[in-house]
């Protein structure tokens, strides 16, 4: 079976530093695939290469078997690849509802309509309410995002990524900076995502990783150190020794 998303021999250098070193990795359809590794292992760079925010110096990215290496992030998004950001990146001066409606308008391709008001598209508002509910933001639809708590903005990150109706969802440290309660809520949220979506997750919180992932890849210095089922990774001597000492 062709993986949902695949990287083949990706190379990315910043000056003399090789951040992604001939890296190959496949994400199976419907998988809950976590990518872990120490800071500087190249996780976020890999994400940016997969999402199209960075261009690789060599190698290919395949989305549903199709070569999208040359496509920009917007083109990849239109073919079903959606992402959240490590730092909250919503439309800060819009309300939560407006954020989601805007995302839906982009995904639905109505953005080029300039001859009638946004209010004409009522179905977007309904759909936005639905998504807001599914990420636990139904009470704050009319709040300007800038005034939202950090944790709620983090939830909106997921909501925005979901609004694009993705086949593959890239989540960049969804629980970063969250309180234990917020982290737990986020874990629930991700665990409850439809199985039709392939979820790729960068995460530091090992409880979240082992609570959600059915497959884990360990990155180290821009290379894949190990890929396997959670038990296998947990039991791996090298991982225990290097990363699990304090974390979990």
């Amino acid at each position, binding site marked *: 079976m062709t993986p949902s998303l695949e990287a083949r021999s990706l190379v990315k250098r910043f000056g003399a530093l090789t951040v992604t070193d001939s890296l190959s990795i496949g994400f199976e359809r419907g998988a809950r695939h976590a990518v872990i590794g120490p800071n500087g292992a190249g996780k976020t760079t890999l994400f940016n290469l997969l999402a199209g925010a960075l261009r690789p110096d060599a190698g290919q990215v395949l989305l549903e078997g199709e070569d999208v290496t040359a496509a920009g992030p*917007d083109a990849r998004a239109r073919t079903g690849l959606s992402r959240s950001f490590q730092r909250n*990146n919503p439309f800060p001066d819009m309300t939560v509802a407006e954020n989601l409606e805007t995302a839906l308008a982009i995904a639905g391709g109505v953005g080029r*309509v300039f001859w009638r008001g946004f209010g004409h598209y009522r179905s977007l508002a309904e759909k936005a309410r639905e998504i807001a509910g599914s990420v636990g933001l139904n009470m704050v639809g009319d709040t300007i995002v800038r005034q939202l708590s950090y944790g709620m903005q983090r939830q909106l990150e997921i909501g925005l990524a979901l609004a694009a109706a993705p086949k593959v969802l890239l989540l960049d440290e969804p629980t970063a900076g969250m309180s234990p309660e917020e982290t737990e809520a986020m874990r629930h949220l991700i665990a409850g995502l439809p199985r039709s979506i392939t979820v790729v997750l960068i995460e530091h919180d090992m409880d979240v990783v082992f609570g959600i992932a059915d497959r884990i890849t360990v990155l180290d210095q821009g290379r894949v150190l190990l890929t396997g089922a959670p038990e296998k990774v947990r039991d791996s001597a090298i991982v225990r020794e290097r990363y699990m000492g304090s974390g979990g």
Partner: protein
Amino acid sequence: MTLRLVTLAVLIVAAGASWAFSGFFGKDLLTEIAILAIFAMSLDLLAGYTGMVSLGHAAFFGVGAYGMAAAGSLLGLGGLPAMAVAVAAAMALALIVGVFVVRLKGVFFIMITLAVGQMVHAWVFRSEALGGDDGMGGIIRPDLGTIGLVLDDPADFALFALVLAFLSFLALDLVARSPFGRLLTAIHQSESRARALGCPVERYKLGAYVIAAAFAGLAGALAAQRDYFVSPEFLTWTVSGEVLIVVIVGGMGSLLGPVIGAAVVTLLKHQLSDVTTYWMFFLGLFFVLVVMFADRGLYGALRRLKRRREAAT
């Protein structure tokens, strides 16, 4: 929302009243304000909504003015077709230039638009067909006799400019409220997010650039008609600068702010030039102070006033 409607109503009543009760000089001033308002609203769509602060918007104003003159005196077209040519010429230039400039952001965008503006000025200044630094005359105003308007009459021409300003507001307001306008705002607030959601950002910016150019071209065509004459003066950097001042003083991203700004700056300029020949100094000072202390502009101040009164009651 209501503040918007009240402001709009006040502006319409004020424009109507000053048109009805002013003399020749007043109507001339009103025409000038209406033209500047169209020009400023067009820049607001770019700078206020999309976040593309251009310092070369005079290029499209000037091309509109020269388009009007050339269509009349070189192609022999009537007033209304000439205006259509003027707007089309501005849009065509925006399409060509825009392909390059929309890739640049922030300060780089400011620099390249300033350079493009200077380039168009330099080119027109040396163009023999367009009269070089002597400029061009022979401009005719549209014939609207069928609806009882004689545009060569200053009162009727002022009315024409005011109506066009109002229609331009309606059109740009619709664009701003449309899904397209919403995406422009989204791009302004987070370009990377809009892109990650699948928005081809450059294409939308190009769209905004061309629409803004169309209305700047319309303003230019009207300015050419007002003077019956065009010159490279229409294309200088001070024209681009003044219109940006108008937008910022009035309040970016509101469309009504730039209309208020157009009225305030035009009146201020006339008052100042009565008192001193160095009015540009004070206009520049006023602008620096607004940027430093009131960057939401006059309309932003109105908004804050309203919010404070609501909070008090």
